[in-house]
């Protein structure tokens, strides 16, 4: 019998015949998509680093390059909107490469019928956020799709930044012995979005932590802290960021739950919905993997910056089991901090 191999038909890389929301949720399914479809198709040395952006060298100058798309609903939420996210998200991805963000592009995909005032508000937010982060929007694109074919407004931004320090910051540089710092409290962005999206009322308004992290990153590098890896905490929260880095660096990461700051209102909202704040999204927080020698210096530097004043030392890197992340609770018992399949789902009771 003849066996036919159709080159256009790749081996089934997924048990799912359709794309699920979870494939974009920052969890295991998204990793599966990246590892089994995107990486094999586009494989190269830079992509294989699996960092927030790629660092390329042009005429002796190292540049960081990244892109991100923003599809948040609602477009406006306490503490920010899709415009501030579109600037800060890309700025933060560049900062995580150790770069100073300089130039950005913006692509707008607008649904027919969107209120002009809404678009103008978003653009004004982008203008302000770009000024705060010190970036210039130097190119762009506008598309309008039929009513019902978009969700009001999608934005894609790409960014270029300049590496001013002679350092390599990447997950592969994380080694056993490194210490892990967190720049502040977690879970605010996700709960701010959820409280608006689901119409949940809490005693206080939870505001997103959306902010450009270039300031604290530059402060760390300027002070000479030996930074091995940086990661901003977005979808999937702290837990997913730690899992991704532990996986790429082939190390074990052990953190202490009581060292992770979570505001009381965020913790309360998470309790009510049965969510774990360690998996909830942030837009203005980072983890830094640094040499243990520089721990006191790094904490001092972060504490002196408004976006790092709540920074804490949350854990250590060990050789242990590659890819494993554990968290020790207040009772001193350690458990696995796993990568979720997709987004967290609220529980029944």
């Amino acid at each position, binding site marked *: 019998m003849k066996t036919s191999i159709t080159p256009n038909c790749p081996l089934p890389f997924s048990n799912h015949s359709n794309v699920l*929301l979870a494939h974009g949720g920052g969890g295991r399914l998204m990793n599966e998509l990246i590892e089994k479809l995107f990486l094999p198709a586009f494989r190269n040395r830079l992509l294989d680093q699996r960092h927030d952006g790629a660092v390329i060298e042009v005429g002796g100058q190292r540049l960081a390059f990244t892109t991100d798309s923003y599809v948040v609903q609602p477009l406006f939420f306490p503490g920010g909107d899709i415009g501030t996210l579109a600037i800060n998200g890309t700025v933060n991805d560049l900062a995580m490469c150790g770069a100073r963000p300089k130039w950005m592009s913006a692509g707008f995909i607008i649904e027919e019928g969107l209120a002009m005032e809404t678009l103008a508000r978003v653009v004004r937010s982008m203008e302000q956020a770009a000024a705060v982060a010190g970036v210039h929007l130097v190119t762009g694109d506008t598309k309008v799709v039929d009513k019902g074919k978009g969700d009001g407004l999608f934005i894609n931004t790409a960014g270029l930044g300049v590496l001013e320090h002679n350092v390599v910051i990447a997950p592969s540089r994380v080694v056993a012995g490194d210490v892990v710092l967190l720049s502040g409290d977690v879970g605010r962005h996700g709960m701010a979005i959820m409280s608006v999206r689901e119409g949940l009322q809490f005693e206080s308004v939870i505001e997103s932590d959306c902010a450009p992290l270039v300031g604290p990153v530059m402060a760390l590098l300027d002070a000479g802290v030996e930074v091995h890896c940086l990661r901003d905490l977005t979808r999937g929260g702290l837990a997913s960021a730690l899992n991704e880095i532990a996986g790429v660096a082939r190390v074990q990461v052990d953190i202490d739950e009581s060292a992770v700051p979570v505001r009381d209102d965020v913790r309360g909202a998470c309790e009510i919905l049965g969510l774990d704040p360690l998996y909830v999204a942030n837009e203005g927080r980072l983890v830094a993997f640094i040499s243990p020698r520089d721990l006191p210096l790094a904490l001092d530097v972060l504490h002196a910056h408004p976006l790092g004043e709540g920074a804490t030392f949350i854990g250590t890197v060990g050789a242990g089991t590659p890819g494993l992340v554990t968290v020790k609770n207040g009772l001193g018992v350690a458990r696995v901090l796993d990568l979720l399949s997709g987004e967290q789902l609220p529980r029944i009771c």
Partner: protein
Amino acid sequence: MKFLDEYRDAALTRQLAAKLAQRVTRPWTLMEVCGGQTHAIVKFGLDTLLPPGLELVHGPGCPVCVTPIELIDKALEIAARPEVIFCSFGDMLRVPGSKMDLLSVKARGGDVRIVYSPIDAVKLAQDKPSREVVFFAVGFETTAPANAIAVAQARQFGLKNFSLLVSHVLVPPAMEAILASPDNRVQGFLAAGHVCAIMGYTEYEPLVRKHRVPIVVTGFEPLDILQGLLMCVDLLESGRAEVENQYTRAVRREGNRPALELVREVFRVVPRKWRGIGEIPQSGLGLSEAYAEFDAEMRFGVAGVGAEESGECISGLILQGVRKPHECPAFGARCTPDHPLGATMVSSEGACAAYHRYRRVQAATH
């Protein structure tokens, strides 16, 4: 956080664990009935603080886990219809039916939505009079009153486009089934505190008399669970089979009377199939005759849908406390939260998912 941190105090937890170690003089096997308790035990690592010989087995009290596969298939069939908005609590969406789950129906164009309360589904039915709004009424006695209110409201508002797909289950018949099983190893129970907040605990008194097992109504925080265990061990060590209430801040013996009255008006007790266990007589709730018009199974003609479970999944034995999750050959290999064979791997309250999420490494090395 007020009313929460007090019940997670590390020093008090250790004190209670030490007391428990002093009180235990021989091996005992206890079952925590509720999936919420299982989740807390594994998350906080309470089982690692227990004295040797005191074994916890995880009970059938995860409503997501025990919802039978044919009911999931019915939900999938209804949710795929173009006129339907299918509303469910979040963690039902990933439970596999015989071919797919609700998230996959959504990806193929079905209008499947997560709601936080059945009342939200009633509001949706008011707002979308041209659509059929179906709420997946899953849960133990705890969620029955809210679902009863939803149906009563729908009638009051004259809504013709709202219905419930009911999969309510009752705890005491399941405990009876476990105790009556020839494989039973359970010598005492931590009863589910939130179920008892609605139902009270008079139903457990005949069970205790018949099977001579102590039952302690217990809460969900670390201190609640350890105190419940201590009370249960104390009863066992002193040879007393009684019902005691640890969760006094939420539970009274007679339960919540107004809630019970409403539940009895809207629902009636019916036989119910439990996933992995089989049919247990008088173990579920269905809509009463007076509210039968709100029954989604009848409205959409899916009453006849049947399905078979995966032959490899041992969730039934796990739900009865006969086996532990990591004793299953498929655990962590062919059965993971991404590709669950059975519902105990899906729900965050399911014993297999809790072990997979918090315990994989320890389970593998022990």
